[in-house]
């Protein structure tokens, strides 16, 4: 077996997410690569939760879709995840004796193994059947007792020594059971296939890496209001930002958060906020302020199911329209999308640099899948970006006037920051003259609108606009953005194994749209699938409106493929889609 996908289901109290994390860490220290997805129900504690863990000998950035092994500590809420955990006839199922009544669709199956993990834990004086299961599965994966102990310690180190020791002995007993009640399935051959993951590898979520990217690129001020699934990015930053001399403020609401961030940015301190759909909607007015006053502002938006409160704990890519269009007035700004857990670091860094260099708003779109999934990956590359203010020639010479909103060729004007004598000006959301004096004149309005648009245009020439993964002789193409990219890459690989060549193009720069680069990618293609995880094909509509403005004579056939969350796209569904249409070549 090349890869292995294990689904863990339980109620919140059974600790399946903790189990998944410990198992991932122990497996990583044994040489596996892996990725863990956490999915929660709406209840905070005691509700249903599930974790999906994928392990294999090569780095894994996506989920395959198939479930090889299902471990059920509690069936009671399984139905709520049934859509997201597609069980097939080849799925091996192991349930705990205390798991309760089996879901109806499984009642007919006779291949389910029932083992008394809760009894085992209880016999040692522990209530944690998840730890017994951890030992059991880890032993099957050839994890040593030391590795399991270390994983337990990592998770529980804030508890008492006795608690840790008890958990470690429960895990050891679980491992013993593997010998007595073997799973009867062979694990993937990761350990034999050097070089696997090493202890130098990282275990990180996209939210943590976005936070790291922000701080490494120079963010020194954060203000935000808690919201799932962005809070853990903020919590990570809160623990680190003071060590680099910065501050994180928990604001009274998102209106305050974004305006505090603008205040710090106006003061010349690289600043950001992080939120999710409902919060981004509240920030809309202030985004226009950042654009008009030309104040650097970075917003990380970790998407969840919408509209309204929607599905707060699960992934969707449905804030595209809000991020791109959700502003009053003509308000050019930048929208980027992080394209993998690792890329959250790079894209955040780029956002910080763009915002400060071009004195504008940059929104980074991530989602619950990238933000909260945990991946084993090589240490993140050194941050290539740095916040820098373009304070051209300040303070102005004695007696010379300072034009804060000077109409320059690049569109970027010299920005003074408080403390610089001679640069005193009032930044303004009111339309203004080059001299930063309020003005309602058509001429000033047009000049400033042109300027604010012009300063973003050269971005489409940046090589960071996206990634292109080509295959020889391909005439088919998948175009995607955000968390779909790793899934599309896996589909590309599987298609190649089946003899079908497909190119995959991923967009990091969503706005302004790099139309020329995209057109170049489409040369020689017959079909392009535009993929995204939202109900109405928000990006596809936007793409078509841009392409129709360019020369559309030789456009390939564009096929919209979209659907809402939280059901993830799977590599296999893309394979089937492309095979069906592509076979006709």
């Amino acid at each position, binding site marked *: 077996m090349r890869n292995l996908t294990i689904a863990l289901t339980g109620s919140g109290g059974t600790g399946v997410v903790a189990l998944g994390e410990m198992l991932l*860490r122990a497996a*990583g*220290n044994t040489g596996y690569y892996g990725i863990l997805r956490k999915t929660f129900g709406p209840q905070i504690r005691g509700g249903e939760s599930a974790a999906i863990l994928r392990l294999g000998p090569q780095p894994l950035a996506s989920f395959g879709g198939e479930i090889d092994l299902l471990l059920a500590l509690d069936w009671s809420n399984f139905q709520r995840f049934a859509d997201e955990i597609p069980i097939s006839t080849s799925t091996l199922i192991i349930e705990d004796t205390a798991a309760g009544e089996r879901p109806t669709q499984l009642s007919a199956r006779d291949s389910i193994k029932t083992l008394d993990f809760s009894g085992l834990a209880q016999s040692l004086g522990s209530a944690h059947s998840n730890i017994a299961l951890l030992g059991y599965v880890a032993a099957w994966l050839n994890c040593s007792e030391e590795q399991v102990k270390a994983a337990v310690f990592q998770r529980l180190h804030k508890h008492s020594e006795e608690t840790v020791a008890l958990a470690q002995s429960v895990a050891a007993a679980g491992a013993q059971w593997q010998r007595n009640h073997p799973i009867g399935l062979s694990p993937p051959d990761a350990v034999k296939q050097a070089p696997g993951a*090493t*202890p*130098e*590898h*990282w*275990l*990180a979520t996209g939210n*943590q890496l976005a936070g*790291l990217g922000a*701080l490494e690129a120079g963010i*020194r*001020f954060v*203000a935000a209001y808690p919201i799932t699934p962005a809070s853990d990015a903020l919590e990570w930053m809160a623990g*680190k930002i*003071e*060590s*680099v*001399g910065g*501050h994180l*403020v928990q*604001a*009274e*609401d998102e*209106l*305050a958060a974004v*305006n*505090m961030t*603008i*205040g*710090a940015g*106006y*003061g*010349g301190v690289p*600043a950001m906020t992080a939120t999710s759909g409902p919060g981004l909607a509240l920030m809309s*007015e*202030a985004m*226009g*302020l950042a654009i008009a*006053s030309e104040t650097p502002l970075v917003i990380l938006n970790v998407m969840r199911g919408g509209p309204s409160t929607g599905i707060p704990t699960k992934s969707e890519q449905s804030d595209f329209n809000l991020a791109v269009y959700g502003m009053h007035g003509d308000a050019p700004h930048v929208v980027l999308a992080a394209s993998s857990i690792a890329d959250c670091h790079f894209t955040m860094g780029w956002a910080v640099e763009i915002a400060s260099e071009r004195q504008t708003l940059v929104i980074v779109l991530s989602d619950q899948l990238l933000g909260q999934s945990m991946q*084993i990956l090589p*240490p*993140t590359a050194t941050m290539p970006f740095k916040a820098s203010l373009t304070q051209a020639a300040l303070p102005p010479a004695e007696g010379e006037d300072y034009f804060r909103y000077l109409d320059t060729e690049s569109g970027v004007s010299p920005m*003074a920051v*408080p*403390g*610089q*004598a*001679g*640069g*005193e*000006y*009032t*930044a*303004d*959301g009111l339309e203004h003259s080059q001299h930063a*004096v*309020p003005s309602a004149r058509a001429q000033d309005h047009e000049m400033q609108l042109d300027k604010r648009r012009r300063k973003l245009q050269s971005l489409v020439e940046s090589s960071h606009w996206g990634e292109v993964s080509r295959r020889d002789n391909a005439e088919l193409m998948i175009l995607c953005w955000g968390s779909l990219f790793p899934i599309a890459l896996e589909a590309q690989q599987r298609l190649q194994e089946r003899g079908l060549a497909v190119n995959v193009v991923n967009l990091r720069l969503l706005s302004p749209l790099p139309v020329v680069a995209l057109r170049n990618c489409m040369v020689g293609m017959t079909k392009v699938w535009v993929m995204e995880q939202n109900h109405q094909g928000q990006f596809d509509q936007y793409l078509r409106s841009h392409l129709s403005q360019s020369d559309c004579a030789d456009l390939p056939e564009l096929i919209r493929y979209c659907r809402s969350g939280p059901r993830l796209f799977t590599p296999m569904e893309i394979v089937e889609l492309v095979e069906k249409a592509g076979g006709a070549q």
Partner: protein
Amino acid sequence: MILKAKQYKSGVKPIWCPGCGHYSVLNAITKAFAALQQAPEQAVLVSGIGCSSRLPAYVHSYGFHGVHGRALPVAAGLKVARPELNVMALGGDGDGFSIGGNHFLHACRRNVDIVYVVMDNEVYGMTKGQASPTTPENWDHSKLTPHGPEVRPFQPCALALAAGASFIARGHSGDPNGLAQILYEAVQHPGFAFVQVLSQCVTFCPEQAQWKEIVHTEDVCTSDPVAAASFLHGDDGFAKGIFYRNPRPVWPLAHERKEADLREGFRL
């Protein structure tokens, strides 16, 4: 070089109606700056939207004219990020107590070291005369509320006290020197200093011309919140002076900076 009050004017011509109380507030600010010999490049005036919020452009210092109701968060973010600056937020009663009401409460509670000046004319001047949260309940001059607002007005100073402000004062646009004195003290107060200014709107509330007959100076400054509450609840709304002054730790509190590797904690 000694800077005179008028050297703190930017030279941009105010849009205000002749006789508007906000002119006096502008004069009081420049006088206070002259008294403080405030370095223009180290001062930032932050405002929201309204006639009153136009003020920063008229002062020779840095300024930020933001969106309606959000002066306080902009000012707080700036001050936390750049603590060495002298940051003053200002605006109107609509800006501060209606659309920005939540920020007002939290700014009082948070106690960031900024001054907040509200030019209270009990009306929305800029949008041509609608009722605000401080408008008298029977004021029926607005077409939008033909019966008057029919709700009791806020008492901003009592509200500030309840929310935790550590400096509370009231001035009057008819007395720019007295107001300059209050602002001079407010700037030097460590923590959040709230200054309500009765600043008349000659255009939509000409009756406010009578304020100069009814304001009275009260020398009641206390650090006792109970005494301050008792005074403010009995107050007719026209007392002038510094009512409450009780410094407490300024936010953010200083913490020892622990050097840490940002990349620590990620290894398997």
